[in-house]
């Protein structure tokens, strides 16, 4: 028999069981995420934007425990602000990723959050960094969150280097849609952020506008 789930959400930790993805293209990056926040079996927020700005052209994607991830993002946002004033120019993506990594590594026993850091800087162009468990690695693309395991096959097969910005955006939307279909902890709308030399563009793709596949 199914248990009564009425008050579960009061006692369960709030997690962003989620799907997040960041992809590099020639000239920038595209980040994407779903919008579901769950506490146990309840969805406590169906429209949360998990793409959090760390600086004008550097964003991070949150997954894992909602509180931990948000806190890391806020702390790093502050540290990057200070850092960019000190060096008197825009910070590098690698610096932002390093700051995130430092916190994730130092407090790895206490925290359970994984942030993917992506952005554009003048020196190295578009970059994507994964910071899982306190490592720091630059990758052409990164996926994370509970929904990511279902789409490893798809991203392995479909990713190619040298995509254009529009192709990247389509790739991100397709991946999110497939993960949302299969992962119970991912859902809602898709948030897409595209960052390049000219600026940052935020977009929302509503649930019924997401791509559909043969079984839908």
């Amino acid at each position, binding site marked *: 028999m199914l248990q009564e789930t009425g008050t579960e959400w009061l006692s369960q930790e709030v997690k962003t069981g989620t799907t997040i993805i960041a992809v590099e293209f020639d000239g920038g990056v595209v980040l994407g995420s779903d919008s579901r926040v769950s506490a146990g079996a309840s969805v406590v927020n169906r429209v949360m934007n998990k793409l959090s700005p760390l600086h004008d052209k550097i964003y991070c994607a949150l997954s894992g425990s909602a509180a931990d991830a948000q806190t890391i993002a806020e702390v790093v946002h502050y540290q990057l602000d200070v850092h960019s004033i000190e060096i008197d120019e825009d910070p590098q993506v690698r610096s932002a990723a390093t700051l995130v990594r430092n916190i994730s590594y130092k407090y790895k026993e206490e925290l359970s959050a994984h942030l993917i850091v992506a952005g554009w800087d003048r020196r190295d162009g578009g970059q994507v960094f994964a910071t899982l468990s306190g490592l720091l690695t630059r990758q052409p693309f990164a996926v994370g969150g509970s929904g990511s395991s*279902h789409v490893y*096959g798809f991203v*392995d*097969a*479909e990713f190619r280097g040298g995509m254009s910005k529009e192709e990247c955006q389509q790739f991100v939307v397709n991946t999110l849609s497939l*993960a949302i279909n*299969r992962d119970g902890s991912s859902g809602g709308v898709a948030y897409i952020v595209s960052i390049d030399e000219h600026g940052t563009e935020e977009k929302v793709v509503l649930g019924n506008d997401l791509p559909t596949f*043969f079984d839908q």
Partner: protein
Amino acid sequence: MEKRSVDSRVRGVSTGTTILAATFDGGVVIGSDSRASIGGEYVSSKTINKVVQVHDQIFCCMAGSLADAQAVTKAAKFHLSFHSVQMETPPLVIAAASVLQELCYNNKEELQAGFITAGWDRKKGPQVGAGRGDSHTGSRDTAVQSNSTYWRVAAVLIPCVPPQVYVVPLGGMLVGQPVTIGGSGSTYIYGYVDAKYKPNMSREECLQFATNALALAMGRDNVSGGVAHLVVITETGVEHVVVPGNKLPKFHNE
């Protein structure tokens, strides 16, 4: 992602695995990887064939505990051959799936078995089914690997009708689907299968699709690997295709 028990004394040799079956225009393709491991730490066989014949043109795919899978396969073989003698005709796919379903359901405490039954019979054509022994009973086939889960893929070929695939999940429900995947490696290719499978593909397209899906799953799942065993079942017969590891398709990160 689910944790897997690593107590090899209790679990014995298991086939953490990837198996799939898909219908195309005129037949079915069923396939699996070839790795058998103990607790995910030691590969006990690199070349085990998990595609087992249970009738003239019926094949099963194994996943989960090898011992259990072999025992159930033997029982199913016996039942099906007896059934076909009684009926004086090769068994229908759904009959093969039902045999497996009964075995799963009646022994569900000891077994945690799921089946993918793929085949072709006179009545309904190509079919794919999966049987699984867990509490998931959604209409989508979600192959969750738990301790000693096994998958059977039975392909029944009977001339004149398109092939079919049935799914018998753990617990013993029976569902028919055009394509189904199972085993521990299947979690990584749900997105790929959803995106790339199309009904009524050609034989070559379906074979390529199945090979790609197995290669992608083997690339990400540490308890799947080795060669890809594929069996193509059509009206005219059964064909085995083995794709060795070094001939598997490579993707951007290899």
